[in-house]
């Protein structure tokens, strides 16, 4: 233990109880669905039973005539929008596409696509009413894979979509929305210098973020034309911006009140129900509440992309990576905008390779529009790159961590996509993984008699992280505590990580800062809780707001002591004269006497920081594979990550463990399972099968702290990168257990048996 007297920080790095904790363990915390306004109507969406169809007509007359129905909405009730690209925070999307995703125009593009909606006095009546809406469909053939969608004669989702390829817009309609390229050096020269070349193809299925709380919203209009939305979102301001664009009303007429949010992982940024509820509420003249069923969440909201990836990598005999060439094609779902660009940027970022070429294709298919999901795009890509690297290590008979240490990126190295790394901690994660007892422990073989095979795998991952705009206000209470107001919805303990940065700055205890998440009418602009940005950027705003408080409080203290503010230091909650240590006054006393020194003190800060610290992780996993059933069990898991600076280590560990658990689900169970007609067959938790606590062991974490030079406390975002390594690490472990390379996700029992030739 570090002595508290010599420790650099007093609050940062400790593990106080989170400020919103008691409300969340008592059931008192109010989530989106816990809101109930007087006179509320219940809204329900009619969804397409087809993956691809033309809408010939929609007849809502019978639904409208049903007693209790107060409003019916179709796309005709939304303003028509022109093409306009909007930045949603973790993804960009064309607003016209966003509008037609919310309520279909002309065609339905996936099973579950919203077609119409009803508001009624009860949910039962609303459900009855949507069944009375008659939609005449002309069913069209669906395209369900990038391969099918990229065929020259493939059915087209959007007759006007053409390919933007390396900056040029083609004129031929296509399902390929874009082709981008990253190029560095000369790959042919690199491969000619390689002693070992491995080339493989990988396929992954769409997977859902899987937050436990379904999407929910309540919309209410006032007679003065203003709209208030109570909901569950990762970004209240992002919702406000999207609603303003979709409904063509000024942002100043919209107030978005974010309630507690039951998980998001990227999936609660773009709007789905919100504009529909607003349209229905306007037509009905009453508040409308809409909550998705679990099946609707799976069918109608964003999974992340399925993908096809081909990767060729070459290394010299002494284990130096010489060249890498990759082809990535990601399913965007029904509208352009997969995270293939991010995938291509992250794929090889952990390695210093002279010769790289990556071609990335964004392809529309008849599946739900892909949404952001924790390190969007990077997990698919790392599954390929980290599997190929494992194979190269095997061919060279090199230890996989030693190989990565030899080729790993460090400060000053240039990523293939351009940026030069500042101080990063990738090599440190490798060293920590190597030193961890897990890596040298013998593989468990106590129950070898059951026929299971054991293997260990390692993989690394990279994520860029994000900065973005944040606001914080810190007002001083007369008892010397701080009310801290921020605009970032708290999904995993960010009230605590923000408040702790404020407390550290002012020499207060964590519990002396009272954080509140405010609505869009009560705080300055703040971007989404996503991109691993909140503890970094909103935390920075809280640090700056605290600095502002400190400046003002120093002046007040100086006034009370009748000395110059320049003569004062704040330490341990006491302002003391630098010249005369007898002259001092406590922060609390100054706070109590604000009325006599000029009135209230409020610190404020807005930030848009540039010094984003990228994140690296290295994972080690032991598995047992049953060759007879194909089932893989996770026996032991260790996640190592450079977090820059852990503000609240427990919640940093929690992010790492949660990312691993999602990665394990992605690796072994989870997939969107379609029939040939493009109907989703597993739209329930039971059939989608996320990991339960019986599927996982304890998840060991190693926090590596290589401070980010771009943040006052050295923070790097921590939330996203831990989902990146697991599928590759587990695939490598499976190989070392049974000698078969897996190139498909999920590596379900069926896929393992197929790969080992036990299925015909």
């Amino acid at each position: 233990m570090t002595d508290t007297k010599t420790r650099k920080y007093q609050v940062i790095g400790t593990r106080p109880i989170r400020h919103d904790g008691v409300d969340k363990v008592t059931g008192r915390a109010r989530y989106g669905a816990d809101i109930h306004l007087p006179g509320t109507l219940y809204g329900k969406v009619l969804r397409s039973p087809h993956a691809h169809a033309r809408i010939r007509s929609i007849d809502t007359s019978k639904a409208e005539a049903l007693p209790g129905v107060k409003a019916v909405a179709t796309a005709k009730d939304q303003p028509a929008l022109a093409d306009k690209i909007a930045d949603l925070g973790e993804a960009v999307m064309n607003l016209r596409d966003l509008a037609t995703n919310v309520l279909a125009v002309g065609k339905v593009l996936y099973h579950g696509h919203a077609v119409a909606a009803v508001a009624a006095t009860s949910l039962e009546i609303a459900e009855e009413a949507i069944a009375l809406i008659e939609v005449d469909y002309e069913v069209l053939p669906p395209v369900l894979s990038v391969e099918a969608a990229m065929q020259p004669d493939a059915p087209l989702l959007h007759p006007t979509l053409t390919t933007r390829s390396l900056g040029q817009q083609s004129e031929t309609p296509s399902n390929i929305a874009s082709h981008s390229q990253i190029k560095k050096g000369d790959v042919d020269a690199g491969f000619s210098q390689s002693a070992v070349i491995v080339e493989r193809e990988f396929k992954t299925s769409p997977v859902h973020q899987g937050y436990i709380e379904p999407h929910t919203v309540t919309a209410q209009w006032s007679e003065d034309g203003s709209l208030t939305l109570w909901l569950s979102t990762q970004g209240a301001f992002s919702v406000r911006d999207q609603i303003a664009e979709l409904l063509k009303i000024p942002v100043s007429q919209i107030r978005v009140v974010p309630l507690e949010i039951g998980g998001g992982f990227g999936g609660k940024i773009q709007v789905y129900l919100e504009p529909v509820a607003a349209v229905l509420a306007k037509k009905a003249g009453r508040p409308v509440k809409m909550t998705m069923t679990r099946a609707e969440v799976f069918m109608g909201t964003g999974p992340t992309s399925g993908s096809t990836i081909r990767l060729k990598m070459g290394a010299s005999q002494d284990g130096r990576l010489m060249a890498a060439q990759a082809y990535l094609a990601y399913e965007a779902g029904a509208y352009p905008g997969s995270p293939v660009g991010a995938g291509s940027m992250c794929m090889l970022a952990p390695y210093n390779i002279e010769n790289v070429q990556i071609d990335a294709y964004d392809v529309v298919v008849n599946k739900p529009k892909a949404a952001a999901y924790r390190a969007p795009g990077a997990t698919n890509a790392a599954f390929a790159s980290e599997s190929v690297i494992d194979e190269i290590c095997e061919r060279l008979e090199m230890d996989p961590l030693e190989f990565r240490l030899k080729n790993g990126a460090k400060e000053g190295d240039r990523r293939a996509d351009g940026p030069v790394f500042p101080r990063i901690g990738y090599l440190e994660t490798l060293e920590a993984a190597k030193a961890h007892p897990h890596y040298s422990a013998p593989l468990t073989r106590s129950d070898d008699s059951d026929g299971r095979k054991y293997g260990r795998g390692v993989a690394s991952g990279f994520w860029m992280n994000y900065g973005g705009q944040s606001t914080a206000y810190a007002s001083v209470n007369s008892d010397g505590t701080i009310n801290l107001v921020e605009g970032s919805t708290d999904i995993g303990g960010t009230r605590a990580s923000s408040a702790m940065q404020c407390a550290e700055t002012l020499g207060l205890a964590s519990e002396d800062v009272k954080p509140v998440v405010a609505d869009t009418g009560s705080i300055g602009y703040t971007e989404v809780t996503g991109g691993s940005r909140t503890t970094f950027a909103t935390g920075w705003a809280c640090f700056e707001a605290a600095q502002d408080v400190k400046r003002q409080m120093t002046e007040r203290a100086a006034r009370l002591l009748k000395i110059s503010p320049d003569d004062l230091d704040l330490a341990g909650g006491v302002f003391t004269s630098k010249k005369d240590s007898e002259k001092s006054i406590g922060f609390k006393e100054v706070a109590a006497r604000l009325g006599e020194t000029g009135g209230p003190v409020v610190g404020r800060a807005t930030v848009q920081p540039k010094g984003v610290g990228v994140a690296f992780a290295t994972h080690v996993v032991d598995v047992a594979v049953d060759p007879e059933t194909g089932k893989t069990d996770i026996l032991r898991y260790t996640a190592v990550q450079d977090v820059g600076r852990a503000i609240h280590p427990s919640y940093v560990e929690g992010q790492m463990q949660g990312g691993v658990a999602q990665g394990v689900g992605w690796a072994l169970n989870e997939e969107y399972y379609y029939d040939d007609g493009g109907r989703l067959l597993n739209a329930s938790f039971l059939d989608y099968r996320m990991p339960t606590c019986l599927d996982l062991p304890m998840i060991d974490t190693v926090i590596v702290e290589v401070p980010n030079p771009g943040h006052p406390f050295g923070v790097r975002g921590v939330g996203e990168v831990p989902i990146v390594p697991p599928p590759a690490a587990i695939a490598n472990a499976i190989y070392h257990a049974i000698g078969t390379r897996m190139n498909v996700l999920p590596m379900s029992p069926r896929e393992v048996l197929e790969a080992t030739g036990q299925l015909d």
Partner: protein
Amino acid sequence: MKTHVQARINGEEVEFLCEPSQSLLEVLRDVLGLTGAKEGCNNGNCGACNVILDGRLVNSCLVLGVETQGSEIATVEGMAADGRLHPLQQRFLEEAALQCGICTPGFLVSARALLDVHPHPTEQQARQWLAGNLCRCTGYDKIVRAVIGTADGGR
């Protein structure tokens, strides 16, 4: 036609009217305003709505309100008593066993039911008992530690 139901919830006599089709979860949340039980799936897959009904752990979304006539129901709202958190609640806070918190009430109720049956559960018993509760944030590590730690009486 609504049915009149009388039950004890968290030790108090409660009367309510409910539709024959309304689940206990709907009654708790929409009729009685007890929104601690959460709806994650409405088909018994996720455990976010778990309550203890006459000593048995149940998914309240799979019980009809009218079935609870004369029964004893314990929800998350009844765990803290006399101004003090239940030891499980306290331990969840100390171990950081929650992130978004939507699954937390369900886990706490399930863990309480577990400790009633196995006052000192092994890790395997705890995992088996909690396997009906889905959490997407934590990877379960800190939840399992908090539950076992509560049984061991803290450090």
